[in-house]
């Protein structure tokens, strides 16, 4: 098997401690949570951190709870917890949709939402989910906390708004009436990253779409927020024809690269199909 290069290791006992260590040691120090992105990269020598800070003892970050009119998810909430959360199932079923097709059940026991978002793999399903839901993330640094909306979170391939001596601690999603959401993903085989995936969130009031969130995974250098398609939907009555149109716009606005999963034209086509299907299911849930 391939093995990691020599590195140092410590266990964090507090978030402030993590930030202090990051500030002190610099960018060759990485946080490890679930480890299922970082450790495979270390084994393949694609990442060679000199030092690791293990945050798995920070149990205070493992929550999924409602606070006022928000659902708040701690960075250390595991995929399996997101999959099984009744709170999320009630308000944001898009999470369960995505979690069922993220990796496999064993990986889901360890991987975390914080790790997934910060890894920012262009194919990451949770990034699309949180973008579609118009979530915000809480980032803590030496100077305190700041709240960053998802549409400012992705800044480049594998790059996020989390700075060198900062840590993502929480995800916040507003609960608004009339919500429905769904995730549609096509993978070549169970456990694979997506060929393409769409997260769709829709808010319907009085028979009209008052807001929409659509995010595309795996068809660009990072998660794509389909703002043009969202604009199309706002103020209209849901219909299959409308969803097809939205899918076509998403298809145009996606930026897929040709690779082993497929050529550009197929991926664009898939974006259209998956977007339409996600909107259909999100709408059905909103109208329930």
């Amino acid at each position: 098997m391939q093995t990691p290069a020599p590195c140092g290791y410590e266990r964090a006992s507090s978030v402030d401690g993590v930030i202090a260590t990051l500030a002190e040691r610099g960018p060759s120090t990485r946080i490890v949570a679930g480890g299922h992105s970082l450790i495979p990269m270390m084994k393949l020598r694609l990442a060679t951190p000199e030092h690791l800070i293990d945050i798995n003892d920070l149990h205070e970050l493992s929550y999924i709870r409602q606070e006022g009119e928000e659902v708040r998810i701690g960075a250390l909430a595991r995929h399996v917890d997101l999959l099984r959360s009744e709170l999320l199932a009630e308000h944001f079923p898009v999470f369960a949709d995505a979690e069922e097709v993220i990796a496999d059940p064993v990986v889901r026991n360890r991987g975390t939402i914080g790790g997934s978002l910060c890894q920012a793999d262009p194919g990451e399903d949770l990034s699309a989910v949180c973008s579609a839901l118009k979530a915000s993330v809480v980032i803590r640094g030496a100077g305190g906390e700041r709240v960053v909306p998802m549409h400012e979170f992705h800044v480049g391939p594998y790059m996020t708004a989390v700075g060198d001596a900062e840590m993502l601690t929480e995800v916040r999603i507003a609960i608004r009436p009339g919500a429905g959401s769904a995730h549609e993903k096509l993978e070549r085989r169970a456990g694979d990253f997506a060929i393409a995936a769409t997260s769709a969130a829709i808010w319907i009031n009085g028979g009209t779409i008052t807001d929409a969130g659509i995010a595309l995974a795996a068809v660009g250098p990072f998660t794509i927020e389909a703002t043009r398609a969202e604009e199309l939907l706002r103020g209209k009555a849901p219909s299959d024809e409308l969803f097809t149109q939205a899918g076509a716009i998403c298809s145009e606005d996606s930026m897929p690269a040709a690779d082993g999963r497929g050529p550009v034209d197929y991926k664009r086509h898939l974006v259209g199909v998956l977007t339409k299907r996600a909107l259909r299911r999100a709408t059905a849930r909103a109208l329930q």
Partner: protein
Amino acid sequence: MATVENLPSPTHERPVGFGRLKRKEDARFIRGKGTYLDDIRLPGMLHGAILRSPYAHAKILSIDTSRALEHPNVVAVMTAKDLETLGLAWMPTISYDTQAVLAGDKVRFHGQEVAFVIATDEYSARDALPLIEVDYEPLPVVVNARKALDPDAPLIRDDKPGKTDNLATPTWEAGDEQAADRVFAEADVIATRDIMYPRCHPAPMETCGMIADFNPDTGQLNIYNGNQAPHVHRTVYAHVAGLAEHMIRIQCNDIGGGFGNKVPVYPGYVCAIAGSIVAGKPVKWLEDRSENLMSTGFARDYIMHSSICAKDGRITGLKVDVIADHGAFDSTAQPTKFPAGFFHICCGSYDLQAAHVKVTAVYTNKAPGGVAYRCSFRITEAVYLVERMVDALALEMGVDPIALRRSSFIKPEQFPYETTTGWTYDSGQYDKTMGVAMEIAGYEELRREQAEKRARGELMGIGVSFFTEGVGAGPRAHMDILGLSMNDGADLRLHPSGKAVVSLSCQTQGQGHETTFAQIVAEELGIPPEDVEVRHGDTDRSPYGLGTYGSRSTPVSGGAVSIVSRKVRDKARLIAATMLETRPEDLAWEKGRWYVKGDPEKGALIEEITQRAYSGEAMPEGLEGGLDAQVIYDPPNLTYPYGAYICVVDVDPETAFVKVRRFIAVDDCGVRINPMIVDGQIHGGLAEGVGIALMELISFDEEGNCMNGSFMDYLIPTSMECPDWELGETVTPCPHHPLGAKGVGESPNVGSPPAIVNAVIDALHQTHGVDHIDMPCTPARVWAAMQGRPEPPQ
């Protein structure tokens, strides 16, 4: 539904002989007490790691190992120069070519071995690899086998004096070209296709590796190595290392899957041996998964152009032209007289009037190999070709694909049947087996369902494949590998207690030999299988033989064990006659006992006879004592298992995702020793077929970089992609095999890919005009076919 399924069996059921016996070898595996290569720790053992080329074709200008040598835990770093002094820089392959152990002048494929680091632990060995500096000068690359013989193609094997092109072996032909041309001229219908069987990989779950332990004081070389042909390897190492064979001992212990991947001799093995000789300590080399996928023996990579014809509604002729991509070195494993393996069995299960086959083998800048992955020596390629062509012909003729097959099958009364390409099939009831498959599948009902779904815009496909393959190589007159004839031996020794040890040449990698061969002895002698120890995998303690691949264990070693057991039984008869004070001809046998024909109460149990054999009491003339026998079995022919497979797929009309909904497999492998193990072999091979048909691919970019060097990119089916297999059986014994058994291990991989691809095309032909698609049928590739733009994957 007449299916043979694994019904829960009471734990007290233990047949003495053939039957559903639970496996003896399970006891250690379910406890985690197997002994695989990485489980073996020897005192003072060092660890090796291989530095591999990042280029597909490049000159090596210099190699600087000084920084690696400075690593505190590195003991040695070997390059081609070091191996040259030992005469080990190049090694012979199983197909009479040569292969670089470590690249000296240049590298010829992405991932080729360049240097070997030996360190005190495996982490340090890997840490040292990036410290070796190699200066390369990249050269033009050829990875498209169709272009390998172009006049301006880069010359790959310039190590061979006088070599001016990339032809790997002399062109192979079988059949009769003129007769085929005549038959085609007289045909009513002709169909032509370009069909590729893409490169894929056996990828057993345990990668390849070796522990070499050379004792400088005794000159003995002890090797631990999971390989499918330990005696052949020992002969090769004796030749390569200049040691006498009896100074080399290979122990295979438990092997985590082979599937043909563990047949070749790999450079890493030779490096481990050289390293141990040089360091005077045991050296372990164990590859990682990327090395396994990128450098060890791949499978297939056949580019085929074929025509098939029919007259009066029956298939009459077949022509095939093949370009075979062997990679940078010819390391394929097949009997010497058959450089294209058994590909010319593509004449199939049909009573053809003529066939012609031509195979041109080329070198390319890719990893070496080609014969692997349950292929029965290229029969996977052959059956894929003919079964796709039969479906193409059925489309052309506008007839049901099963009806066309049934009208053209070889009939039972025609066996033994000599085919147009030189095979003599032993026995078969093809139409009967096809009928059983149709019944299990509910074929008529499936066609009705398909029509209803099509009317609603749903795409359902039904695909068929009928295969005949030839296994159990083989008769010594025709079959040798590296000049070693393909016979196998068996030694059987009964102990005073009446328990037995049978030693075999074949080598299990999960096929259940510890159980099934004990069952053969049990069937012949009446000794319970739990009292028969099956010994194999240790060249010091097993008779010479050519190993396990090409489904030869049951046909060859099974034949040997049966015959050796009968020899012991015959000796036992003579002893029993003495014990019972009668003549041997007055005795009759029932399982476990010789008894007097006229007086059945009077008899001798096999345990009593064995005790007598070891006692001081009088023995019959000609027998000295003890009860044992040895046999080398020279099979008179291959055996020809066959089967009828039906696959049902659903294709998502928008995403083009293919789901295998049902798979019906009716195999006829003659007499079944252990139906549970036979069914298990079939399940596993069918899963491989799903993988090959839908997702497995080793591909290269224009620079020759391998794009599928991990299990993230080389996709193998999980439990989610495999349906609940539906199995049936017919039993047509093999007339020339002592047990009537034929072997089955490779049949499911042989027969399933064409059934799946035929199903995909069946789903898409009427609505989208698809009449061919190459594997793997990934969503993207199926979608392209639906748009009218199918392309081969490479």
